[in-house]
Each structure stands twice: as structure tokens, then as C-alpha cells.
């Protein structure tokens, strides 16, 4: 399978990406590692006529201590997240879940920004960022703006990024090394999650997020509320499927996904509190 023909633009900086997007509009797509976009292009589900390669903008690949938060460049690869000592100490959940993405080969190429901008509800890391109330920084023709994770994921493969904007940075709170657990249920080791459940303690309160339980990554607000009101983890987990829109597909019916969500939330809560 070969992608449809396209013109290739290699960008040396975020400014060059934004300029190329301004010039080519909706016809252009940004590629970073290509782990999500290239499979779609090979299946001709995506047929951009201009491909803007951001993959060599090395100054957008970093994990930095920014005082009250950790700043991560959008071009930081999963491999660099899963081996980051700073992240291990300051936001262990992001480092740990990055190691669960795909397989070694995918993590050598795929980037945090690419995963976020792609907006796939079956991806692992967007759910982490929703749980952490991360902030995204996007650069467009009129400068940079910040977007809250809660308002970023709008639908299946749809985000609040404008067609002429580039995601440049992800900011996450310092949550420490521990106090989290991620439960990913799939049939083969490297597959996307059929359902995933994340529990992470942020500033003393337990946050819970779900993977592949709707068109976007979701917070399990029912579970969080029950916990805040003093419910035991196994009772709170009973609300794991509340407010979800679980899809039915070849792997699982929506009803089975709801069951998985409740079970996986319970296990994640037990793991995060252990």
C-alpha cells in the first residue's frame, strides 16, 4: 500500500510549519513521526496533497522543569518520554503510560504532539493529559495560544487545533513518581486499547480517565465524584461507564466495553492507591 502522491515540505522550525500551513491551507497535513498519519495515508483514508514534515525540528523535542509544571516539546518521542528521568520523578504517570504505547519501533518514531494532534480516543496518552488537566500550546499565524486539555478533544480525530496551527508544547502538573495506575485491555500486546482506564492522584484528589469509551478521551466524573464523597474504590468503580458512549466494533460490543470500564477502573484505583 502506497500513499497518494503529495508534495513534500521539510520545515526547519515551527515558523516554517505555520507558514507552509498558511500557504497550503486544508490541503496540507503536518507529519511528525507519522505513526498515526502514514497508516491512514497508505489506506488512502487521508490524502493530503502537501505533507509538511515537522519531524526534524529538534528544538521542539525536550522535557523541561518549568517551575510549577513540566514542559514537553510536541516533537518529543514516546521513547524519550519513557526514558526521561525528570518525568520519572515529576510526572511518573506520563513516563509510565508512554511505555505502554504501541511497541518499541512505534515509540522510536511516534511523538507526544503527534498523538495529541491526531485526536484518536483509542490512544493512551491523550487520556493521561485529560486526567492531568494538561495545557497545550499551539502556534498559528497570529502567535501562540494556550488550550486546556478538557476543551481540546472535540470528536473522533477532531481537535480544537485550527488547520493553520501547530501544536508546539504540552504542559503537565508535577504529580510525583507514583500514585497512578493504568489498565490497558487488548487482545495482542501491541494493539490499541479495547478499553483503557487510568487513575492518578493529582494534588490529593483521584482523577480517572478512560480510553476508547467514546469519540474522545473521557474523564470518569461519576467515579471521581463518588470517591470524593468517600465511596470505596470498588463502589466508585461501578460508575466507570457513566456518561460514556462506548463504540461497538469487531473487538467488542458497547455493552462489553462498559463492563470492561467498570472492571478496569476498579483495578486502576486499587493500583493507584497501593
Amino acid at each position, binding site marked *: *500500500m*502506497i*500513499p*497518494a*502522491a*503529495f*508534495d*513534500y515540505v*521539510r520545515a526547519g522550525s515551527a515558523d516554517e510549519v505555520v507558514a507552509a500551513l498558511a500557504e497550503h491551507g486544508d490541503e496540507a497535513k503536518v*507529519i511528525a513521526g*507519522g*505513526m498515526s498519519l*502514514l*497508516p491512514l*495515508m*497508505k489506506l488512502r483514508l487521508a490524502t493530503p496533497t502537501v*505533507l509538511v*514534515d515537522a*519531524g526534524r525540528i529538534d528544538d521542539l523535542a525536550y522535557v523541561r522543569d518549568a517551575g510549577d509544571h513540566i514542559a514537553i516539546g510536541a516533537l518529543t518521542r514516546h*521513547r524519550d518520554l519513557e526514558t526521561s528521568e525528570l518525568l520519572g520523578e515529576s510526572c511518573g504517570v506520563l513516563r509510565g503510560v508512554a511505555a505502554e504505547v*504501541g*511497541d*518499541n*519501533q*512505534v515509540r*522510536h*518514531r511516534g511523538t507526544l504532539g503527534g498523538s495529541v494532534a491526531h485526536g484518536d480516543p483509542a490512544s493512551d496518552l491523550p487520556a493521561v493529559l485529560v486526567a492531568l488537566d494538561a495545557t497545550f500550546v499551539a502556534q498559528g499565524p497570529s502567535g501562540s495560544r494556550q488550550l486546556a486539555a478538557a476543551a481540546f478533544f472535540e470528536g473522533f480525530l477532531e481537535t480544537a487545533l485550527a488547520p493553520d496551527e501547530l501544536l508546539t508544547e504540552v504542559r503537565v502538573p508535577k504529580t510525583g513518581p507514583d500514585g497512578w495506575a493504568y489498565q490497558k485491555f487488548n487482545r495482542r*500486546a*501491541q494493539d490499541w486499547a479495547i478499553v483503557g482506564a487510568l487513575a492518578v492522584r493529582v494534588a490529593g484528589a483521584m482523577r480517572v480517565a478512560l480510553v476508547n469509551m467514546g469519540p474522545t478521551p473521557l474523564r470518569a466524573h461519576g467515579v471521581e465524584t463518588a470517591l470524593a464523597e468517600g465511596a470505596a474504590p470498588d463502589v466508585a468503580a461501578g460508575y466507570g461507564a457513566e456518561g460514556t458512549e462506548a463504540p461497538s466494533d469487531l473487538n467488542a460490543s458497547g455493552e462489553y466495553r462498559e463492563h470492561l470500564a467498570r472492571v478496569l477502573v476498579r483495578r486502576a484505583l486499587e493500583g493507584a492507591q497501593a
Partner: protein
Amino acid sequence: MDVSITVNGRAERHDVEPRTLLVQYLREACELTGTKVGCDTSSCGACTVLVDGESVKSCTMLAVQADGRSATTIEGLASGAELHAVQRAFQENHGLQCGFCTAGMVMAAVSLLDEVPNPTEADVRLGLEGNLCRCTGYHNIVKAVLAAAGSR
């Protein structure tokens, strides 16, 4: 467009379309057919090669993304008649049957051992999760990778 890649230590330069996949560049332009295309959807790992020393699935990378970088394929591992430690271990431990996954499996193992020099069995099984083998049941592959780690 011209794409230059140092493949197995040799400078290659070929005029290819931007949509050319790295695996096509290696197999068709460089005529190195040891790298196989299996699933063509980045699931099976048969097309695994090293780019700048790290394993990647060459069916899901454009040749232009490797422009100016170095690539290593299965053909580049041995020194003359002397097999690479991982190749030798696969041979000695019967780590293959039909052989279709083997080039990718070996390259993934080389990258894994570079990152985790003294792996446990669990490390090997997890580290090779991106490579499928439909013959062996994996046991002898895992044994081979552990043997290669111990032999170095």
C-alpha cells in the same frame, strides 16, 4: 526528489517520489531484499530495520524521513562470513522456521539489546511485542535473544 541514506555503511542516493516508503527504497532502489513486507500496516514488524541505530518499521516511514540518516538492514549485520551475535544465536537456538519474520525479528532484537543489554525473559518478550511470528510460538526466539545477550 533525491534521497540520500547511508545504508549498511554505504552512501546511497536515489531519485524517488516523496511518497516512497523506506522499505521500498531499501528493497527496490538499493536492491536489498532481506527486509520483508509482511502486514504493510505496521503491526507485524517483518520490515523492521534500524535508523540511526534504533528499530523502526520501514513500511510506515517515508524514505524522505530517513534522508541524511543511516540505516542498517539484515544484510548489514554480519562481518563477512562472521555472523552477528544475534544471527548466530537464532541459528544455534532454532529461532526460526519459515524465516519470513526473521530479518525483522533479528533487527528488533539488535535494537532491544542495545537499549537493554542484560534483559530478563520478560524484557525480551515485551521488547519484541511489535514482531509477530506465526511458526515458532516465540520460545526459541526468546531463547536466542537471551543467548545473544549472554554471548556478548
